[in-house]
């Protein structure tokens, strides 16, 4: 069935998408050449840069009349990615999440407190519709206002949470401060955790601390949004084989052996408005094809273990060093020398941007220094969508590199 869907999607895209047609012609591949999974590997890749270059809507293959929603994700160098959805796209997206939630035991009896951000990000509305699809009650509280989150968790019969791993830890911290024991003061026993990487030992710690059994969730706005979830076994994300075809490729773009880690390349089999064919998401993982103990035969994607590019995930938000570079480049009083340091205290990420002032701009006027620091901070937040700590440095004090500069020190610990 996957092969049939693949062939259909390629044929459809070849006909409807100018971009895809051109790419296929350049690669010398025709839709009728594809008769096996091996043939399919001749189809050219799509990359993040392709989405950016075709901003805002050149990759859509339906008209706006047929779109019922668009989401916008932050981009690498200023330009975001716009993703359109037909009604069927929204249905399939909700279906993917509904299946996932069912697979770890959520049902209409549950109340889901959705702590993912609503709006242009896909996390909030994705989980929202998925949970409604299984008939669960949704509390669409969105992110932030932690004491209110904890209050409502106690006042209402909330049984499950959805949020980023670091936010769960924050909730746990604030519960401690407020003297709230989640085990006794609430009915929350399960949680969906996604949007940023974390480790198995972090999960264990969180579960021990809060009594909330957490299930990993993986996705990206380019797919639909969050899409793949773990089942009750907590042993890999079930890749819905009727919705997505996932390849794991090595450095030479050859398929990895089963269980070996490599670059994730995803093809969305039933996506209508904004199809993805052999899309390189940039994450690294492996696939386990053995049937899961839960009985499901959909292959399982293991924990994401890294990136093929320099993208960082900070507090659930994708950050590219190039974004920071471009902000710095626009400010005349800054030199191009900068350094990013990532740390996490109680698993809450913190990002420090150190950047050198130019010698001309250096001043002993504290008020001016403060103003400059605030301006940089504000401009970074505009581009990155998250707050960064900023430190202006004296000219010539940040490390210089011969050859490839190392701009990032990631000290985050996931043990």
């Amino acid at each position, binding site marked *: 069935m996957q092969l049939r869907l693949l062939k259909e999607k390629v044929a459809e895209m070849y006909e409807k998408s100018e971009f895809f047609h051109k790419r296929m012609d350049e690669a010398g591949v025709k839709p009728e050449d594809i008769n096996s999974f091996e043939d399919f590997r001749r189809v050219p890749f799509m990359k993040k840069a392709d989405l950016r270059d075709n901003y805002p809507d050149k990759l859509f293959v339906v008209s706006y009349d047929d779109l019922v929603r668009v989401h916008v994700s932050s981009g690498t160098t200023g330009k975001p990615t716009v993703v359109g959805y037909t009604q069927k796209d929204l249905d399939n997206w909700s279906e993917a999440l509904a299946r996932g939630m069912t697979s770890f035991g959520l049902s209409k009896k549950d109340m889901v407190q959705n702590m993912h951000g609503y709006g242009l990000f896909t996390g909030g509305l994705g989980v929202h519709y998925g949970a409604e699809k299984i008939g669960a009650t949704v509390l669409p509280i969105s992110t932030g206002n932690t004491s209110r989150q904890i209050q409502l968790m106690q006042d209402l019969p909330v049984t499950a949470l959805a949020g980023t791993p670091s936010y769960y830890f924050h909730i746990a911290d604030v519960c401690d401060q407020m003297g709230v024991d989640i085990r006794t003061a609430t009915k929350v026993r399960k949680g969906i955790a996604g949007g940023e990487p974390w480790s198995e030992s972090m999960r264990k710690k969180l579960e021990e601390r809060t009594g909330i059994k957490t299930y990993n969730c993986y996705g990206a706005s380019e797919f639909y949004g969050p899409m793949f979830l773990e089942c009750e076994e907590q042993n890999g994300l079930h890749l819905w084989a009727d919705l997505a075809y996932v390849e794991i490729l090595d450095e030479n773009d050859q398929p990895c052996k089963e269980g070996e880690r490599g670059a994730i390349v995803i093809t969305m089999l039933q996506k209508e408005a904004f199809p993805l064919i052999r899309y390189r998401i940039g994450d690294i993982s492996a696939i386990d094809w053995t049937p899961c103990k839960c009985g499901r035969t959909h292959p399982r994607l293991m924990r994401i273990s890294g990136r093929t590019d320099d993208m960082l995930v900070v507090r659930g938000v994708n950050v590219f060093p190039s974004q920071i570079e471009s902000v710095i480049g626009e400010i005349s009083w800054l030199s191009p020398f900068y350094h990013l340091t990532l740390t996490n205290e109680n698993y809450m990420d913190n990002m420090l941007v150190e950047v050198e002032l130019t010698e001309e701009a250096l*001043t002993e006027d504290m008020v001016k220094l403060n103003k400059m620091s605030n301006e940089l901070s504000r401009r970074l937040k505009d581009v990155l969508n998250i707050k960064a700590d900023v*430190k*202006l440095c004296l000219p010539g004090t940040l490390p210089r590199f011969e050859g490839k500069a190392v701009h990032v020190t990631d000290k985050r610990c996931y043990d």
Partner: protein
Amino acid sequence: MMSNIIKQLSIFVNNEPGRLAHISSVLKECNINMRAFNLAESTEFGILRAIVDNPDEAYDALKLKGIIAKKTDVIGVYLEDHPGALFMAADALGKANINIEYGYAYSYKDKAIFFIRVDDPVKAVEVIGKQGIKLVSDSEI
């Protein structure tokens, strides 16, 4: 020519242990004598503000050693050693709408000298002079 506007050196120092020791050893090597100084810190780095006997030479010497400094105009006000002396100077500047950004004082014989950075040093010299308050001239440093 004598002037009541004094060049202060603002020496920039990274906020880390041993940096002041390093700067002072360079000052010693370069034979720079400090008459008065003050340490300030921003969130970003420290600033050693110093009145030295020969600011231009000191500036060049520091630059050769890779230490960044800037020259800033300040004025030095002699304050009589009795209550109200500071008020007289500060009040005159305030009434003339001159803003004091920072200052530091030290005792000198039977007086005190108050080095101040103001937003308009030329006007400040005039205002202080009119009050009959004595100013430090650069030749005295």
